């Protein structure tokens, strides 16, 4: 449940509110329902879950703040460490075209769609 909620928080930070809401009302709701079913006391379960979600929200906020602080330093550090560590070494800003994948079969069509949506995101903002 924590993992699902972290995903929701990250999506909201990225401005993808509709996707976040969709997950919130499907995956998260299902997970909450299952957790409540397994609990002897509903108020107690509510309290534990609320605390868990608040903690996960704080963890994501901390992670985002940390990333904002560290990202400006990364390119220099990675370049110093050599091309193998640099995601920009391929010259492709998407980091997708580093080379041919061994087989199209190894990736599902849904993975391709994920690639496409990742490319569309900067354009949609």
């Amino acid at each position, binding site marked *: 449940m924590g993992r699902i*909620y972290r995903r*929701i928080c990250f999506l*909201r930070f990225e401005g993808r*509110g*509709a*996707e976040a*809401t*969709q*997950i*919130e*009302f*499907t995956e*998260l*709701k299902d997970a*909450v329902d299952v957790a409540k079913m397994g609990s002897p006391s509903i108020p107690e379960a*509510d309290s534990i*879950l*609320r605390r868990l*979600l*608040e903690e996960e*929200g704080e963890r994501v906020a901390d992670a985002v703040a940390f990333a904002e602080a560290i990202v400006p330093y990364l390119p220099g550090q990675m370049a110093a460490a050599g091309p193998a560590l640099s995601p920009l070494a391929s010259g*492709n800003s*998407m980091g*997708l*075209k580093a*080379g*041919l*994948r*061994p*087989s*199209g*079969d190894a*990736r*599902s*069509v*849904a993975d*391709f*769609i*994920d*690639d*496409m*949506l990742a*490319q569309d995101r900067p*354009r*949609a903002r």
Partner: protein
Amino acid sequence: MTTATLEKPATAAPSLAPSAQSSRPMVPKAACLLMGLDLGTNKSCVLAGGPGSSDITVSKVVPSVVGYVKDGIVDGIITGNAKVLFGEEALRQMLHVELAVPLAEGVITHPEAARDFMLHLRQLADPSGRSEIRAVVGVPANAGEQAREAIRRAATGVFSHILLIPEPFLAALGYRDDARVRQPGYVDPVVNSLFIDIGGGTSDLCLVQGYFPTREDQISIPFAGDAIDALIFDGLNRTYPNNGLSLITVREIKEAHAYVGPSRKPLEVKVVIGGKSRTLELGEAIGNACNALIDKIYPALTALIASASSDSVVTLLQNIIVTGGGSQIRGIDTVLQKKLADDGYESPTVRLAGQDFQRYVAMGALKAARAARENQWQVLLG
């Protein structure tokens, strides 16, 4: 303004989510039907089928045209006294309707007609009108946000969910023979190929190399079937002034006689002008117009080949595939292949996609619809 998605609250939110305040997504309650849609400038293809199966329950190619019946048409002339006709029926009744073409150069230019046309396609796929329809719709390579938004707007209230995917990639996906992907010797077009999809409004070229094509991997040229029609029309009027032939007739002539390469003469075409049968020599007009297409797409083809990695380019050169209506132009494969060979490219092989050329994009779209994860769909609120 962009299309509304998932903003109106519909049911109670889960009680525990701190930020829960908006709507429940449209979880399918009615039967769900998936649709693959190639919304073409001249012809559109719709395929439909249920999720969790590979069956195709509907497969139709429809001319992309809407006919709004003129006022004052006598009862009974139009079947069922319909007010709006679509596709072949609209063309058959062109004397009695105002014809509207929803798209030009692959982009919606007539929003009302586009919406009516989508409703018609929905009706073809789901005559009962009760299913929840999720549609993957092909868009031209490099289609801008405005063009995409126009499709989303036209589809709002017609489909419940939508996903827009560039057409050349869908063509590769549709062309892929899934049953043979694991067979030794099968060359998977999704792994390493270059697709040339020549439609009515645009010619789209795309490198497909095992990842989703980036913008740099796709080139869309606003020169395709319609532009060829216009060139033939102009050439015809220069040679035979006041011939009175319509663009629709010129398109029919093109579809029957189009070719590229050295001039083919005599190429005599019988037409009826002013009620009299005449034979026109069209070898030069058709050849010039179709060869103009080669002049447009060849530089794009070589640019994409140049952008492929050196590790992949030799195999890539053997997997250049021409699809779309333009693949029916006689000699297009051999002319492109010869030009590449003459320019020194290593053993190029240009192939035609084959008889299903009108369906590959929609086939790929239906495959994508079946594979899409729940969170990849865009929910349309109508």
